[in-house]
């Protein structure tokens, strides 16, 4: 009897080993930067130097490190907003529009609540922004649960509608009477969000955003409502069979999602711009989708992704100033990262096994 040994590799469909799963984000990062290096070279810059400005430089000074947190604030909120919806299987692509709804509410409340002290005015304004975002999210959510209208289409299209509403407001009734610019009148001082770190732009909105992350984590993992959300998102029919009110749960998730997106607009107006302007958001609502996806619809994952995207946004500006590379490189990097992550994440489900087998001949 002759025993012959041979080695074989086999790919199995089970969870990847733990070390690989922990390594995956690093792998995603490296691959992303290898790909974006092509664009950096195209912009006639040294990639390694570029990455220094991108990732290290913003953290090397107190001012720019705080600026990272400023940039992260709306991203944390839109990331949380999108996650609330996606967990329930409601594909809300409308966070951008809902953000502007919150911004409109803040700009309006900021002018009418001026008589109140800050301790009252600011909570009222946050509430107003939440409600405005939720209201803007209501029509597509209602159409979805009542008539099964695809929310991907409706929420996306409503974003454009909202941009035109903002434009109409700013070029019409809300045009700044003093300067004539398309921007709303400045909000009252008592409604401006206080700075939480002196001599910086970091405002109370960051605390709101961090709270939103904590609330997301708490709701999903600790409450009955969160379990229902997950059940509906993971298995609609089975959830319905087990008595979960699917329509009501989806509707609630959609409204919370809209509300949190509205908060993002509110804190940008009340913490940074103090006016409604058309350029409140360079696409925070859409970036929120990327952040929620990269964060694997997990509160802490969303937090890390949002902070990282804040870093890239800040770094792109530093880079642009220092090396004359277009600032859009930041967005290119974010988009590349999503594509790389989507391509690599499925690897989590496989493991490669080295088989040493003996076969008799």
């Amino acid at each position, binding site marked *: 009897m002759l025993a012959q040994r041979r080695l074989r590799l086999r790919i199995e469909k089970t969870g990847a080993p733990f070390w690989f799963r922990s390594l995956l984000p690093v792998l995603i990062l490296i691959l992303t930067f290898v790909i974006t290096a092509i664009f950096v070279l195209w912009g006639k810059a040294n990639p390694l130097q570029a990455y220094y400005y991108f990732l290290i430089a913003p953290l090397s000074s107190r001012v720019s490190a705080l600026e990272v947190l400023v940039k992260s604030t709306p991203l944390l909120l839109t990331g949380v907003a999108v996650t609330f919806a996606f967990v329930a299987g409601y594909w809300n692509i409308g966070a951008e529009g809902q953000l502007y709804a919150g911004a409109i509410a803040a700009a309006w409340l900021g002018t009418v609540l001026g008589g109140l002290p800050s301790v009252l005015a600011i909570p009222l304004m946050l509430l107003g922004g939440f409600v405005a975002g939720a209201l803007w999210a209501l029509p597509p959510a209602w159409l979805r649960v009542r008539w099964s209208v695809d929310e991907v289409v409706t929420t996306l299209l409503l974003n454009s509608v909202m941009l035109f509403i903002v434009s109409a407001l700013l070029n019409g009734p809300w045009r700044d009477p003093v300067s004539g610019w398309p921007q709303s009148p400045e909000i009252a001082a008592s409604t401006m969000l206080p700075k939480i770190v002196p001599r910086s732009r970091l405002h109370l909105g960051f605390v709101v955003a961090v709270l939103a992350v904590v609330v997301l984590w708490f709701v999903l993992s*600790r*409450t009955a409502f969160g379990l229902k959300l*997950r059940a509906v998102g993971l298995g609609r029919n*089975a*959830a*319905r069979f*087990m*008595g979960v009110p699917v329509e009501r749960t989806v509707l609630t998730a959609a409204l919370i999602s809209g509300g949190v997106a509205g908060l993002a607009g509110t804190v940008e107006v009340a913490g940074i711009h103090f006016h409604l302007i058309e350029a409140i958001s360079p696409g925070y609502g859409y970036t929120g989708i990327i952040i929620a996806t990269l964060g694997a619809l997990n509160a802490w994952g969303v937090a890390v992704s949002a902070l990282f995207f804040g870093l890239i946004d800040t770094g792109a500006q530093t880079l642009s100033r220092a090396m004359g590379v277009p600032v859009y490189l930041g967005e290119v990097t974010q988009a590349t990262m999503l594509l790389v992550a989507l391509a690599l994440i499925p690897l989590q489900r496989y493991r490669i096994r080295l088989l040493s087998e003996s076969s008799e001949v």
Partner: protein
Amino acid sequence: MYLVEMLGITKRFGALVANDRIDFNLKPGEIHALLGENGAGKTTLMRILYGLYRADEGQIRVQGRNVHIRSPRDALTLGIGMVTQHFALVPPLTVAENIVLGYTDDFRLNREAIRQAVAEAEERFQIYVDPDAVVQHLSVGQKQRVEILKALYRNARVLILDEPTAVLVPQEVDNLFQTLERLREQGFSIVFISHKLDEVMRISDRVTVLRDGRVVGTVPTAETNERELARMMVGRETFGVTRQEIHQGEEPLLRLENVWANDDQGLPALKSVSLTVRAGEILGIAGVGGNGQKELSEVLSGMRAPTRGRVLVGERDLTGAEPVEFADAGVGRIPEDRHEGVVADLTVAENLALEHLDAFTRNGLLDRKAMLEHAEHLIREFQIKARPTDKAGKLSGGNMQKVILARVLSRQPKVVIAAQPTRGLDIGATEYVRQQLLAQRDRGAAVLLISEDLDEILALSDRIAVIYEGEIVGELPASEATPERLGLLMAGATKEQGRAGTATATTSH
């Protein structure tokens, strides 16, 4: 000389050894039964022969030559054809088109030539199906004939049939067996996969019995008997639920009054169904799959609203009510599709709690400790092989079904709706589920058992109703039920009086 030889075939799926050094051979012109429980490795072995799986170890010889079968195309080239449990037919195409699909040389389809070729093949093999009929309009038995024709048309000399009788009514089984015997006379070899002893005894020349992935033995059918085969198959003399006395039902707990419901296409799937299930009895709904059983169980689970009629649980009208209302009214529901009864990506503990979440919630917060304890308790009581934190989707079919049973039965439901409760389970799990249903009956629950497994209906029911094309075509006490009588009803050949809710446990005939 053997036509096909499989030597030392081993096939692993992860840690599971589905086939463990199996030897199998097939003579020309024989019907060779492959017998074993669910999960014994029968289908895996034949899927290897047909090129759907690759063996990890072992050799296949066809007519004495070593061969490598990498795909069904390779198998067909070697003259091996297979009819799987799930038919591979294109529903909107005609019978003739399905038969020649993928086996035509010309770029242009010559419909008349195809029709002619198929008609000739039907004549040659004496298997008749209208070549112009559209497949989606055919009965299951007819579709099976198309599948067999398809394999023969591709010059298969070896025909593998995977549990061909599972979907057939008794009359269709006779028809199939006549076909198989004719094919044997013409020199074809047939592998007949089954777990039904009587069929194996009736049709086969030799039997190979598999258990847990190993060959227990190969015997000529003439030299064995059902008892011996059963012993080889399950490794013990007796199995199955032993039938006790028939119970008389008490007060009616579940009533359906002239219920109509549509299927997903909007066509009537239930037609004026009236049934009464009483406390302390099991009413079995017998019938061939696709005759309205799915819709019936969905109507009684709150997943499908009836278009007409009434559904009453006790005195409560639950017509068109939501699933949660059925659960709250004390209706325990075991769904036809297990995956509809659990959320695969939630944990066992979460799945066990979800239906009655209020019991595990305080001020909106989950009592996770109570959920885990509840799960641990049920896992012990129902002998579920899982941890509370395992994802439900990772469990085997039997354990997943036990999770559903545990969730449903631990609530002491007044009414139990069990739809195909043992489908796809092995003998151990099947027996367990059946014992649990009997225990519910003895406890005083009204049990509605919807099953396509006639043995199961006969073993458990106190009364039996037969559903055919959405109608209850007969209702009789279990004592009067014979497979023959039920078979005729199930095939729609006869209708018996006693429908429309007048029937009770004492319906005379």
